[in-house]
């Protein structure tokens, strides 16, 4: 089936199989940041934005993106680097395999709630599993990033 979507700011027209999963489509289109960690929608590694909202690309048929806009970390390099540096300063990026999904979801959180409490952060990111870091370092990184943003007087953290 022919679909048209906007992928990371560029129009894409593609002929996709009806059972094609978005994660596979994206990786086939060079978006290698999108990772698969499970087959049961449990890990959050495959998180991407569909019309600006985080979704699990492993659980979404590609045809559902027809006429919509999809963003992966490849399309959010500036935000990823700015926020990611705070994770890296904690050494919390570790193996890095879960990072793209977590960072996508964190960016989504910053947009929805620029001033979250620790509890809100943990709840928002509960679906992003990480086997390396024990999560504390990620939390420290997020806190440090939010503090930095506050000190610069920026409230809306990531403008689209």
């Amino acid at each position, binding site marked *: 089936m022919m679909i048209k979507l906007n992928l990371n700011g560029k129009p894409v027209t593609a002929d996709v199989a009806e059972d094609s999963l978005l994660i596979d489509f994206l990786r086939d289109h060079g978006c290698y940041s999108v990772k698969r*960690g499970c*087959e049961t929608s449990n890990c959050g590694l495959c998180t991407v934005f569909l019309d600006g909202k985080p979704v699990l690309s492993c659980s979404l048929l590609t045809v559902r993106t027809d006429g919509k806009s999809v963003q992966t970390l490849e399309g959010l390099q500036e935000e990823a680097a700015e926020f990611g540096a705070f994770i890296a300063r904690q050494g919390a990026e570790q193996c890095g395999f879960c990072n793209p999904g977590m960072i996508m979801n964190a960016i989504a959180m910053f947009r929805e709630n620029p001033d979250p409490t620790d509890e809100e952060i943990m709840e928002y990111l509960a679906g992003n599993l990480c086997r390396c870091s024990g999560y504390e370092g990620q939390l420290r990184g997020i806190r440090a990033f939010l503090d930095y943003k506050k000190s610069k007087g920026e409230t809306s953290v990531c403008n689209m």
Partner: protein
Amino acid sequence: MQYVNQPVMKKDAMALVTGQPVFMDDLAPADCLIVKLLRSPHANAMIEEIRTDAAMRIPGIEAIYTWKDVPQQRFTLAGQTYPEPSPYDRLILDRHVRFVGDPVAIVAGTTEKAVDRALKIIKVKYQVLEPVLDFHTAKDNPVLVHPEESWKSLCPVGADNKRNLCAADFSEEGDLDSVLSDCDLVVEGTYHTKANQQAMMETFRTCCYLDTYGRLNILSSTQIIFHVRRIVSNALGIPKSKIRVSKPRIGGGFGAKQTAVCEIYPAFVTWMTKKPSKIIFSREESQIASSPRHEMEVKVRIGAMNDGKIRAIDVYTLSNTGAYGEHGPTTVGLSGHKSISLYRNLEAYRFAYDVVYTNEMSAGAYRGYGATQGLFAVETTVNKLAARLHMDPVKLREQNMVREGDEMPSYYHETATSCALDRCLSRAKEMIGWDEKFPCRDMGNGKVRSVGVAMSMQGSGISGVDVGSATIKLNDDGIYTLMIGAADMGTGCDTTLAQVAAECLDCSLDDITVFSADTDLSPYDSGSYASSTAYITGGAVVKACEKLREKITQKGAELLGYSASDAEFDGKEVFCNATGASVSLTDIAIRSMAGNHEALQVTEANSSPTSPPPFMVGMVEIELDKETGSIDILDYVGVVDCGTPLNPNLARVQTEGGIAQGIGMALYEDIQYTPKGQLMNNSFMQYKIPSRMDVGRIRVELESSYEQSGPFGAKSIGEVVINTPSPALVHAVANATGLWIDELPITAEKIAMGLLEHEN
């Protein structure tokens, strides 16, 4: 120090956080054949007939291999130094399948869809055999997991395939029975731990292709490039000269990738078809057919006096290696050596074990490597002893724990040359507020808050066996390349080893480029396991850099017209103290590339006769709901002595991560089989690794000792950190309820049922 012991950012950090394509499947050639495995639905069966003709006719199917197509020499998939203690009990494909999930056929095709279809229509007729599913009955069971004559054990580990034994041994000192009978009390316990999965986020995966010279190139997510080269050579029956193994970034390992779980399949496909191929395990395959922790039953007896003096410890471990023996003979040893040795001045100890084959998934190496299971058992028994003595378990430990300078008879008679365990214990106690909180407080709403404690030790490499090497060379502009064979799997060793090099060479960290790891280019390294990299490979880096400094000084002096003894190198230039003449490192580097006879490159190897243990204390505070049995972790404190932390940030995050993984093992991660031997916990739906809502708050501090034999005083950190949660949490539950949970995981159900039984 400028770089060592500094919290510098990992060299690959920005690539990782911005999602660059640096993992195996991001780098695999686009035209790879897709390789998948047809797996046995039976726990024990002989393949009577296998029909692949219909499957072969599916468009896109390139090859299907069965047991008839593969070499008949047995080998092991364990990544260990040759001769491996693990028995040679595998074939690439075997007519005899030994667990649910054992490979039956390899299918390779151009698309995943074609391969999936082929898997469905291959017809296999099995002669189903009686399986051995209870590891208690495996030894001397009439059903043999490995009846074949070609089974072979290379090392004297007490293995006997005609008895379902993968290993057995016994060691003791002192007269255990008489010391125990002379004790005021003897506390006993039997503990059961499950075959937990490492569950690294990146599943097992490998791609293969032939290079210009027709050599088999293997790009794999592995911790053990050099061992993989030997394993593939053994499996395929081809010379090692035909094989090159390299690794990209690895999405977590935790020991899982110290076994060549998936490499042999695409290697065989590419070798046969000459076409590139790749295999990517699904999460389900990673759960049911991989290399988890050895399930163990550990029996402990501890003899003590009424004043708290511990006099003797007896440990017997029964370990389940499953269908194949990877790491079976070696993991078990740590269950005794790294638990008994926490206690000093014992008059006697005994440690015996059996490692048995069963028709379940084979086990492997998982962070902690047997010490985790043994420490759960011994530390819980020590906590029971304290309860029986009505003594504070922290005081009991203060009285008995190993101290710096102690000889440790049960740890190969090595001396605790560096040990801050005492400081770790007192700091942890302060952090959690032990004296106010022990043992428990009733919150008055059906909830109880309580605390628990445990200690832990591990090693730093395998004494006298592990080898780490480093090559360091000077390039144009005075920059260096550090080449290593150790595997950074997220641990950050590319960075920490560069920190060591920058410290030794008085240069900036940016001036060190790290290359790892490739069997064609890296100097030999056993691999990153057994907590060896910081200590063993770190030592090699120090040696290599010191030698290179000498060579640079020599070259500089030569250029200045002095002898090396009159010259010095400060990292930027070689100068003569007496005259003030100098030549810059850049000039030396440039001059080394014209008319030069002496390479400004050094390779050094390192090994250690000892394995200095890192130590740790973990304390936890929980809130337990007596109605439902559910537990919330309120606070977990971990205080670690890893010697000098090469990078305090990374040491801290390793510790937090290890504690979280240990909490998973203690509370959530269960392994259950159906009566027919099928593993039920085959996805993240059924195998619950902790999310950030499940681990409470983790607080970590480092209490460093200084290990003379380590690079800048460093010991290891990677494994010691996973061992405390199970015993500490069991202890906290006991302090809240009086119930001792001896089988992991500690589920709400076990607590609620236990409390009910108590009442009746």
